[in-house]
């Protein structure tokens, strides 16, 4: 898809020689506006977020109340556009409410991990020495496990529940964010402008704030955005295994689990939550790619 965006990026680097130059973020915004793929996926995500946030207002039915006479109504049934699930609950309503939970499980762990892992990684990278070695070796221990396995293990130990799922996903993502933040910080720390700032008499906090953070935050945030899709998928996996959210709750992964009994009778309905997960995580990944392109100052 990025091939189609190529002509845009080719015409992009026309450096204007205005006397008043826009700030960095204005430039990022302009580059984003020129990127059609990112624009479309980002607006799709925004519309979806708005819809799931407004679920109580726009959902046509109660997500928990089923009608056993209308079980597994096909797509397009009058009054039930997307059909009903195995307990006769409206699929559209369930998908809207499920999206709230899925996006919470997609964004929340990553945001927490970004906060904790980013701080730890930047400190480890900037301080260096044995602090760095300790932090990175501990990170390596977590890295030895596949992330899904680790999430299942932690969730299993903590027991089912939404907050436990968020906690386990946060723990899963911290090591990789620490690693990205650390390597970005180390590469920046050794550049001459950090040395020059120190030679100018700047303290460590100022150097981190002015010279390290702005140059490290970009790659770390982009990486974290790409993790959001992964987080949603693992959260869905946890729910599917019965470790995340529990049955009456609507959540895409859980819906996939309960609907799998109907996969032969009503495949087009059973697949709906999966399609939602797929589209949302692909959108998150494409937006993160677009962000990376827009934030590259040389782009």
């Amino acid at each position, binding site marked *: 898809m990025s091939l189609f965006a190529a002509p845009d990026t080719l015409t992009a680097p026309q*450096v204007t020689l205005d006397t008043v*130059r826009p700030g960095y973020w204005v430039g990022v915004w302009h580059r984003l506006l020129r990127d059609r793929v990112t624009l479309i996926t980002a607006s799709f995500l925004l519309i979806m977020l708005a819809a799931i946030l407004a679920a109580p207002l726009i959902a046509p039915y109660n997500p928990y109340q089923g009608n056993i006479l209308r079980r597994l109504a096909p797509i397009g049934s009058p009054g039930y556009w997307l059909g009903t699930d195995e307990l006769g609950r409206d699929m559209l309503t369930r998908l809207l409410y499920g999206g709230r939970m899925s996006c919470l499980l997609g964004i929340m762990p990553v945001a927490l991990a970004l906060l904790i892992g980013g701080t730890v990684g930047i400190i480890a990278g900037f301080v260096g020495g044995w602090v760095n070695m300790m932090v990175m070796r501990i990170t390596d221990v977590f890295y030895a496990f596949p992330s899904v396995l680790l999430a299942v293990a932690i969730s299993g130990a903590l027991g089912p529940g939404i907050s436990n799922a968020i906690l386990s996903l946060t723990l899963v993502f911290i090591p990789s964010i620490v690693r990205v933040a650390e390597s970005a910080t180390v590469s920046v720390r050794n550049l001459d*402008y950090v040395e*020059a700032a120190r*030679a*100018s*008499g700047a303290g460590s906090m*100022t150097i981190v704030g*002015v010279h390290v953070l702005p140059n490290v935050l970009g790659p770390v945030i982009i990486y974290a955005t790409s993790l959001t899709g992964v987080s949603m998928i693992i959260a869905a996996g946890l729910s599917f295994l019965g470790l995340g959210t529990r049955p009456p709750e609507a959540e895409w992964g859980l819906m996939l689990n309960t609907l799998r009994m109907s996969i032969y009778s009503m495949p087009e309905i059973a697949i709906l939550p999966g399609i939602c997960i797929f589209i949302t995580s692909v959108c998150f990944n494409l937006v993160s790619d677009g962000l990376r392109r827009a934030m590259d100052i040389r782009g």
Partner: protein
Amino acid sequence: MTSETLLSVRSLTKSFSLKGFSSFGRPRPRFRAVDDVSFDLLKGETLGVVGESGCGKSTLSRLIVSLMQPDDGAIVFEGQKVGHGGWPLKEYRRQVQIVFQDSYSSLNPRLTVAESIAFAPRIHGASKSASMSAARDLLDRVGLGPDQFAGRYPHELSGGQRQRINIARALVLRPKLIVLDEPVSALDKSVEAQVLNLLKDLKSDFDVTYLFISHDLNVVQYMADRLLVMYLGAISEFGPVQSVYATPAHPYTAALFASRPSLSPEKRHVAPPLTGDPPSLINPPSGCRFRSRCATAEPVCAESHPPLFPLGDGHAASCFMVGPGSGHSRAPAIGTTTVPDTGARH
């Protein structure tokens, strides 16, 4: 030029331990990047420092701007020791600034050039508007129109323009000493000349002293008043530029000069004046460090490292050939100081 001393370096030593060796109780191998270096920097002069790659030039520059702490020895700035109990670090850094070789990595890519220049005054308590106007003023002084350049980012500038920004950044605190660590090595020859002339102009405008590190002998000859030749972390020769260029006393200096490309086709080199790489710093040769590559080495050279023998007029060389009564067959008799014929071609 006054002969007042601005900065004195006394027996400065810095060693590094080698990484990547498993220790298992044994100490890691260490090497001395700067070994017992002493010299004085006079107010208002330009002191050139030359030497091969890895001879300790950059370590010396980082020691002088306090980006590294020496293992031994002292740096005295305006009569006061640098470090514990002497100059407060922040105040010292206001007085001594550095310009690095790589103009691109010396500038934060996320800051406009004006912001980069204004950073140091902000650190030292100037208001935002005062810092920005100082930055614009400096941009003007280094020949970049502030209206056109203040809002640009480093990647929009050429190498020469970026190095001008770095010079402006070093000057903005009005320091007394600027360490120029190969400031023009990465630039085109035409741009190099412009930047060198700019540095010369700024030196008189801002009344600043330069420590000019380079491996380009022509550049140093153009810029420097005095010259310091380093080999493997130690001073091999020291003196006024004219006298060192006219009569290099150390065979290493002579070889360096002989390696200069000549503009005349008749004077092409037949053979390189020096062969091989410098010996490893981890295990330097005993006695004179240059012994292993020296054509006139004798047994006496293996016994101890030659001290700096004065040759008069501030010229000194660390070679037994110029030390009266040193035991070298070419050494002058005690009581005389002559510069031997080292075979240098100019």
